[in-house]
């Protein structure tokens, strides 16, 4: 009896030992401050679903990044700053090396954790939102507003309209209406569009829509009187389908309406029904499931029943693909950092920061990842934490988004000038001495 007992104990111990050896596989922890309830749940569930699916793909298909498996934990923020701060604090010490990157997908939370993350040495990555002037990496070493910012986007939209008209000089005397969400987010468009209006000589009329924006009768009456050549829709949530329906009502052509990337998802057009047909919107990622990277997710993740999306029809939607972009960039930055700090090792936030700063996703790399045309090529440097600042335009054909342009550039010197000016003011206010980028390795 006693023998049997000790034998059992021995086996149990051996099992424990084996499992702890198996547990010695290096793991990289990524904290996800997600929002799946609340007013922005439609966007949040898509973005975080795509992001988790991509990380799952790396684990399932490649066995992690050079053998380092990705682990993650979600923390519900409800898109609320206070909850976001709580999530940041809760997640930052998790995993063997702590949280390695924080991507709040909310401008408010970004601002709340900006200073803290620099102290804790955790990079904050904000793709297509957040603090615009953080693109100046000399003042904001820990913040990465990657791919493009609101200012680059506004400039790219004007360039797109100019190209449609047949040249930037044709914009002179044209009337452009800006229908914006009356919030800090909507007003982010003002300074840059004012400058562009002065530069190209078009007339800009700004019309505010109060949150949430489900009542736009007076605004569209005003637009009907104004008869603008184009309307830029800087909307959010229910404001977008309402604007499209109202435009249809007053007979304003949707082909002349250009939306921002928070106006250009299936969630914005489908509720508007046939009224959305012809509407164009900018995006730093495109919709569609016919990219190799999405096909791989379907095969390796959903094929094994490990997918995150409850509604599989949303795979390949704009928000879902945006999440895939988040995952892809995060993974590539970790991969880059491993090249410097040791392949197959779990890295700290400080090391991953280096990976983001030296990220270089060229066409060849994107092709290898199966994401050609899915997101723009991206090269980050010490001074420039934004990257290309380009967007693609997609048009809603009544059923789905169709890409109608190549990557459209922004007015880089103008935007970069504004970013540097604003960052310098911040540095002065906070007493930060900008880094000397020639000394960064």
């Amino acid at each position: 009896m006693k023998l049997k007992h000790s034998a059992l104990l021995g086996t149990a111990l051996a099992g424990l030992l084996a499992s702890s050896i198996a547990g010695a596989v290096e793991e990289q922890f990524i904290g996800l401050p997600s929002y799946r309830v609340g007013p922005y749940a439609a966007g949040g569930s898509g973005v975080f679903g795509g992001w988790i699916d991509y990380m799952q793909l790396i684990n399932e298909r490649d066995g992690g990044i050079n053998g380092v498996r990705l682990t993650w934990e979600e923390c519900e923020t409800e898109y609320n700053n206070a909850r976001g701060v709580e999530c940041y604090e809760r997640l930052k010490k998790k995993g063997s090396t702590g949280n390695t990157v924080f991507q709040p997908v909310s401008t408010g939370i970004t601002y709340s954790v900006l200073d803290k993350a620099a102290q804790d040495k955790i990079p904050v990555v904000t793709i297509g939102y957040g603090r615009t002037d953080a693109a100046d990496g000399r003042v904001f070493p820990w913040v990465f507003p990657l791919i493009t910012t609101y200012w680059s986007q506004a400039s790219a939209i004007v360039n797109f309209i100019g190209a449609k008209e047949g040249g930037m000089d044709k914009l002179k005397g044209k009337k452009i209406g800006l229908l914006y969400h009356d919030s800090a987010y909507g007003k982010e468009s003002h300074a840059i569009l004012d400058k562009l209006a002065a530069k190209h000589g078009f007339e800009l009329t700004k019309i505010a829509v109060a949150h949430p924006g489900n009542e736009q009768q007076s605004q569209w009456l005003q637009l009907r009187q104004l008869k603008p050549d184009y309307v830029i829709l800087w909307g959010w949530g229910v404001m977008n389908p309402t604007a499209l329906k109202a435009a249809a009502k007053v007979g304003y052509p949707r082909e002349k309406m250009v939306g921002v990337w928070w106006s250009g998802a299936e969630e914005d057009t489908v509720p508007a029904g046939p009224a959305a047909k012809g509407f164009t919107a900018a995006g730093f990622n495109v919709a569609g499931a016919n990219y190799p990277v999405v096909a791989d997710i379907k095969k390796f993740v959903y094929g094994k029943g490990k997918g995150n999306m409850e509604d599989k029809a949303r795979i390949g939607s704009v928000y879902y693909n945006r999440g895939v972009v988040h995952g892809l960039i995060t993974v590539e930055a970790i991969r880059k950092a491993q090249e410097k700090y040791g392949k197959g090792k779990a890295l700290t936030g400080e090391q991953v920061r280096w990976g983001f700063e030296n990220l270089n996703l060229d066409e060849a790399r994107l092709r290898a990842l199966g994401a050609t045309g899915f997101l723009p090529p991206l090269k980050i440097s010490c001074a420039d934490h934004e990257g290309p600042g380009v967007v693609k335009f997609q048009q809603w054909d009544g059923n789905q988004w169709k890409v109608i342009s190549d990557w459209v550039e922004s007015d880089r010197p103008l935007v970069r000038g504004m970013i540097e000016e604003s960052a310098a003011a911040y540095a002065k206010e906070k007493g930060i001495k900008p880094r000397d980028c020639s000394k960064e390795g």
Partner: protein
Amino acid sequence: MLYREAGQFKSSYAEDGRIFPIRQDRVGFTLLMLVFGVAVPLLANEYWLKAILTPVLIFSLAAIGLNILTGYAGQLSLGSAAFMAVGAFAAYNFILRVDGMPFLLALALAGLAAALVGVLFGLPSLRIKGFYLAVATLAAQFFIVWVLVKFPWFSNHSSSGVVTAQEVSILGYAFVSPEAKYVLTFLVVAVLALAAKNLVRSATGRAWMAVRDMDVAAQVIGFRLMRTKLLAFAVSSFYCGVAGALYAYTYIGTVEPEGFNLDLSFKILFMIIIGGVGSILGAFLGAAFIVLLPILLDNLVPALFGDALGAGFASNLQLIIFGGLIIFFLIVEPHGLARLWQIAKEKLRLWPFPH
């Protein structure tokens, strides 16, 4: 047994009128202060200080503010978050625009600015009551947030409308660490809560309660309605304003109008309903309940159910449980958590010989 007050005699009016007439309460209160004022900052880790305790204290202060107005003076308000916003933006602008502005003075001025705005929006209370007044304060909620977005001067022309709160420093000491920020918050909240407790026991507080119970009767026996009601609005907004400034400076670190939306106003209202209307203790209990329960559920639900539920369902389940618990507590004790404590206290005083 432990809670017997036998042998404790009051031999002067001062002793009769103290906040805690029973010795055990005084000891308990001192211990509580020592635990939260000394032990907690020494022992608690950053997560607890920064993400749990500091917000509970700040929301308690806001709830005290609303409790003064709604619980004691009987004026229903849905604008608490807006008054917090006034406080936060006032503190930001005072520190930004006045050179060498001491933080504590800025805090007081922020409270005064909020009080001024509060009085302004309290004026309708002289004519309208109950739900109609709630609607009038709802207007304050939307109007103030709109003004703060509309005029970029308030946010110092920040392009995104979100501004970073300056560093807090008092007499050259910079409050950067979570411990320092917590202690600062704790001291401000403790002093203001004690002041509130004394205020509601004074003639002013009695005037508020008289107006709450029946304003015509109060007027007949000589209370000036206008003064009493507006004072309640002023004091209440002062508390909310200071809470807003603390929220920006010792907790979140940023100031943005959208953060102070109607949701937050409702949250503060729920705090006093759950905690106990017309009770300072209730404000603390309610704030703790409303702040901590969602965090607890967020930790608990995934741990209990794991991946069995979809992530979206798990998040929604938390809200369902949260709402269910609120209803449960309101059915079990409609007068709030503070009343539960009071009942427990009465039982304890007789225990173990209830007859």
